């Protein structure tokens, strides 16, 4: 092994010991209070209803999947970037194809609505407010206001 890792190991040990010691000192020095609301969940003064189990929306899960896929892609790009001069134009073409395939995937997901974080109701509201010709909602030729779409019955409101 031609690289001495000892300074790094020593530094890591010191850092870990320091942080653990800080936590322990605070635990010893802190006050101990037992009021009648001490042991309750904090919700700005309101009593908490129901357990902490949320129904998670789909975009979070898709973000996690997207993250893994693109992180793995980044790994291949790390390996390429360090050896670019040795692999030359052939390697560049290969990486170009690699990135193109994954960008195609990203574009597909974008157009298919996977990256849409608004709920269906927010999207309806937005369409209703903005209308067909953009935020200002004025017809470019005549200068008069567009008739906005009526909301679907029992839909947006």
């Amino acid at each position, binding site marked *: 092994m031609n*690289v001495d890792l000892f*300074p790094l190991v020593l*530094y890591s040990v010191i850092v870990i010991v320091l942080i653990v010691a*800080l936590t322990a000192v605070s635990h010893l020095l802190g006050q101990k209070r037992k009021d009648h609301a001490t042991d309750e*969940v904090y919700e700005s003064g309101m009593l908490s209803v129901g357990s902490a189990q949320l129904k*998670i929306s789909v975009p979070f899960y898709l973000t996690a999947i997207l993250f893994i896929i693109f992180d793995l892609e980044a790994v291949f*790009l790390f390996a390429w*970037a360090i050896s670019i*001069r040795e692999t030359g134009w052939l390697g560049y073409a290969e990486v170009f194809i690699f990135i193109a395939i994954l960008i195609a995937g990203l574009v597909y997901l974008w157009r298919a609505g996977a990256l849409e974080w608004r709920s269906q109701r927010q999207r309806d509201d937005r369409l209703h407010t903005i209308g067909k010709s953009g935020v200002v909602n004025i017809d470019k030729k005549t200068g008069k206001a567009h008739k906005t779409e009526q909301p679907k019955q029992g839909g947006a409101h």
Partner: protein
Amino acid sequence: MFSFEVGSLLNIAFVLGAGLVVSIMMIWVERRFLGFFSDRLGPNRVGPFGLFQVIADAVKMLTKEDWIPPFSDKFTFVVAPMILPIVMLLSLAVIPFGPGVGVMDLNIGLLWIFAMAGLASYSTMLGGLASNNKFALLGSLRGAGQMISYEVFMGISILGIVILSDSFSLREIVEAQRDGWFVIPQFFGFIVFMVAGMAESHRWPFDLPEGEAEIISGYNTEYSGMKFGLFMIGEYIGMVVMSALIPVLFFGGWLAPFGLEFGNEIFSGLFWMGAKTTFFLLFFVLVRAALVRPRYDQLMSYGWLVMLPLSLVNLLITGAVVLYQAG
């Protein structure tokens, strides 16, 4: 052993001490400069210019009630805040602060930084998960989503520099900038990396995980005393790491601009590195004072649809230019 060589005890003490002191002083710097930028004075009562405010805050943190909620997952609750400062201090180890000043020169120094940034997202997630509190869980989910989205192109934006300097080692990257700082050819990489760095260390305008006034305090709602202090210190250390990393990667590290070196080489290097780090620290405080916080879906769209393609295009163009110049 006691000289300024890479890996000596003096170096370890210096890096650790300087890192911790600067991070703790950021508490005061931030509040004071936020005040200046908002046309008011910050804390200026406690000690000269309010400098002892930091000591007051530290004593307060240490002696506050250290309460572990009985409805929480105790083991994870205690471990989560310790992860962030440990991981951020470890990233400080590979940064070259001067010619011969630095704890270690790993030949994969840049990858070490990314590894530590990836581990830092655990702190956010575990904090909220362990608290068993609806708001904490929501804050930590959003925080985790934001951090992982912005972590992807943090790595890719730096690859342009890896291509130019042909190494992952941070010290060699600094040496490769003797003929010109990398910010000029890699301007877009610089922008993307700075945005990613701000998101990774939860700086405003990316502090949705803390969400002040939206979801109480996000993932650190149930935390008190030093554990909360560890979250805060971890954030400030992260900010210091970013402010030290940006000069190293883009602005020549400890090399002086236009050859304006003076005196001892080590002293000159430390001075310039300190000056650049201070500039970026103040810049981060300015960004916090100036920009508004975007909505969560705007944040995520911006990350995936703007920053990621930009960093990939930057990489491809850099690669093409380098290969063309190499013949």
